[in-house]
């Protein structure tokens, strides 16, 4: 079984210093990897590098799968309504032959945003905006999910929804890398762990 994503000695430099210690990683289908590390250890930078947003300053990164990345900022347009955001996302990201997307309406209902279809994303609460961002995973499915602290500002009910999403995705041969602080994914599965250590800071 080929890994979806392999990284060896991958790192990213800012101010000509490594943000995090070089990382080795092989992400196989149906596996989830939880990334832990102190604040500022570079978890977000690692995720953005794996997603291809940042170009790795060191090491090698190969991706053999479609990727969905949800970063710190929700990545939804405030001046578009919820439905318009999802319609845009469905068309913007590449279609996957092996994955069948939900319609924007179904996704909104699943995300518990049914009553807010016409409302502008800018008028939603932080938790609702995060759920709208996560709904992207339903309308534009991808093999690998890279989620940067998906549980932030979500209530317990929504956190369970995220767990169900992850569970469904993994049993559907998907893979995921998730960074998390207090709330960790609670799944009946083995969670691989990856410790991110801050890069070499000058003395």
């Amino acid at each position, binding site marked *: 079984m080929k890994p979806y994503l392999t990284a060896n000695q991958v790192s990213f430099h*800012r*101010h*000509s210093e490594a943000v995090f210690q070089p990382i080795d990683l092989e992400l196989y289908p149906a596996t989830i990897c939880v990334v832990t590390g102190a604040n500022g250890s570079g978890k977000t930078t690692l995720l953005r590098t794996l997603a291809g947003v940042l170009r790795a300053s060191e090491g090698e990164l190969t991706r053999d799968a479609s990727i969905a990345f949800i970063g710190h900022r929700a990545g939804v347009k405030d001046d578009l309504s919820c439905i318009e955001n999802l319609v845009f996302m469905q068309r913007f990201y590449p279609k996957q032959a092996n994955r069948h997307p939900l319609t924007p309406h179904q996704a909104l209902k699943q995300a518990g945003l049914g009553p807010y279809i016409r409302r502008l994303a800018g008028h939603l609460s932080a938790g609702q905006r995060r759920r709208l961002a996560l709904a992207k995973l339903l309308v534009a499915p991808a093999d690998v999910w890279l989620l940067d602290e998906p549980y932030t500002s979500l209530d317990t009910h929504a956190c369970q929804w995220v767990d169900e999403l992850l569970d469904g995705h993994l049993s559907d041969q998907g893979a995921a890398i998730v960074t998390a602080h207090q709330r960790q994914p609670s799944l009946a599965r083995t969670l691989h762990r990856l410790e991110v250590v801050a890069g070499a800071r*000058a*003395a």
Partner: protein
Amino acid sequence: MWTQIKLAFHKLGSPLIFYRFAQTLIPWLWGLTLITLAAGLYQALFVVPPDYQQGDSYRILYIHVPAAWQAMATYIVMTILATITLIWRIRTAEIMAMTAAPIGAAFTLICLVTGAIWGRPMWGTYWAWDARLTSMLVLLFVYLGIMGLYAAFDDRRQGARIASILILVGVVNIPIIHFSVEWWTTLHQGSTINLFGPSTMDASMLPPLIWMTVAVKLMFGALLLQRARNELLDQDQRKKWVLEALRMGGHDS
């Protein structure tokens, strides 16, 4: 042969080696600059006869022309350094590309001011939209744009890389500006008297120009190394190599 150059350049990439290289070279460059400058000025002002048409006002040529050439040569140097910055990301190349910009701007300024003053007896006004002066003015804005962009970033390295993109865009743009400005002056025939300069450039007028041009090139080298050395020190104030370079950590390490 190519591998030696690449190796040498890579070695220059390390801050300590570059610092020492700069420190040894700067006094020599300044020394040579002063010698050639003295020779050039002496000839320009005391030896060369006045021009039969322009009288002595053409002596301004001996600073105006070297400054103009240096303003453009600096940009070529910056282009090479910017390419190295974007491809191999060698840090000293980044720093030199960015620190060369203010020097280029200074020479462009000298060229503009001396050109305007020289034009005064010819055109009756200080500023005339002569094709080359106008191109120089736009070049000054290009330099100011690069300096402004670099200064606007907190992360020095990110700023250098982004300003390097602007340098490369400028390389394509500067010849186009020059061409379009030339065309523009020919379109509006009436607006400017064209070229100024000595009516004929006979051989006796040449040597001072060569001395002055060499002096300006050496001066550029010295200024560039000084500024690059400063920027390197400023960025790495707490790094180990700085202590070693300034021989402070010597006694206890």
